[in-house]
């Protein structure tokens, strides 16, 4: 099926089977391999992307369901010039080790901070509970997200 949507500000058109998930479409059709796939059944959060600004698991949405949507992947949250405030904060607080889960944490944290720049530590922990990290123990990630709040306040 021919499906058109927007990814990181660019219109794309893909010809895919209905069974292809958005996660696989991004990685294999569009070569946007920043989105990682862990569990493929909606448990680990590694494949989180933004669909019309909202964080969703891209393994639990079909590519054909993205028709007309605006998708933002982790690639769309960075620029070539400099690290973003969220990326800087992750580096400063050692919020990653192996990095496999990091794209999911960045996209989730970006959605949270955009919607709720005044969230407290409990809210950050509650929201990040949908993402699994097997290295850091989460403390650094929570600290990084809390510090990045300042950059999202208007």
């Amino acid at each position, binding site marked *: 099926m021919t499906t058109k949507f927007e990814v990181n500000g660019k219109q794309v058109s893909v010809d895919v089977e*209905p*069974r292809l*998930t958005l996660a696989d479409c991004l990685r294999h059709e569009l070569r946007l391999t920043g989105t990682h796939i862990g569990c*493929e*059944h909606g448990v680990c959060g590694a494949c989180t992307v933004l669909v019309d600004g909202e*964080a969703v698991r891209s393994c*639990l949405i079909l590519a054909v369901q993205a*028709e007309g949507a605006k998708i933002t992947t982790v690639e769309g949250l960075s620029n070539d010039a400099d690290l973003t405030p969220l990326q800087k904060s992750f580096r400063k607080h050692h919020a990653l080790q192996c990095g496999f889960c990091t794209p999911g944490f960045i996209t989730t944290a970006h959605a*949270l901070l955009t919607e709720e720049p005044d969230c407290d530590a409990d809210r950050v922990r509650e929201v990040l509970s949908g993402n699994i990290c097997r290295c850091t123990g989460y403390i650094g990630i929570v600290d990084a997200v809390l510090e990045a709040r300042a950059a999202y306040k208007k």
Partner: protein
Amino acid sequence: MKLPPFEYACPTTINEAVALLANHSGEAKPLAGGQSLMPMMAFRVAQPSLLVDLRKLPGLKEIKIGPDGVRLGALVRWRDILDDNRLAAAHPLLKEAVSHVAHYQIRNRGTVGGSCAHADPASEMPGIAQTCDAGITAMGKSGTRTIKAVDFFQGALTTALKPDEIITEVHLPAWPEARRYGFQEFARRRGDFAMAGVALYYDVEGGKAANAHIGVFGVGDCQRRLPKAEAALNGKAVDEALAVKVGEAAAAEAEPQEDIHASAAYRRALTGTLTERALKAAAARPVK
């Protein structure tokens, strides 16, 4: 795992969607938020030949609040419920229950209709539907009908829905302002499936509990009310001693299952403890 192959349709009217389901003799499935159906397909628990995507159907995304209660369109997402400030007064028990549903990303996609049609025994929404005597409206090729929650949920992943029927609305009867309620759920990690959960409410008449509704989820193969525990609550003034007694009645009445997550005895004890806590929370909550 990757999903098994299937065909996909995205109709723009509900009649068209019903016709697609009816013409596939039980092999087609409606797709709402997909937060349960997609994992089921990844695990090959479900292998529909056709997915009928409901996302373009009009009129299913509204939350209507009126004198007769709250009407949730089938495509209302958990996030929509949490974001709707009117529900804090119109149905605080629903709002509290939904805050326990899965995780942030799931709540951005998962729907009321999808959760009821899926009927996972540990899900919050069917628990609220049972506790609150919800009416579930479905449309099929022979028309529209409203099914009482008690008749709708028939067992684990089993409902009264026919293969050609699509849920359109879940109706929760009106919520009096002074009603007292409690909601308790226990899982090892936040967002996990409940090992046991309790949703309850009662009204106060002359200082005593009346119209008690106590429902459990994650206990047994289906969400259900506990009439004996309700009888132990009705007509009595709620204090700590009564909360303990009603908890004991709930534990005795529950029909818990055993699985890798917990033994039946543990779930029974949890049911008692959670009922007791929910009742204490209900009694302690300030009422206008």
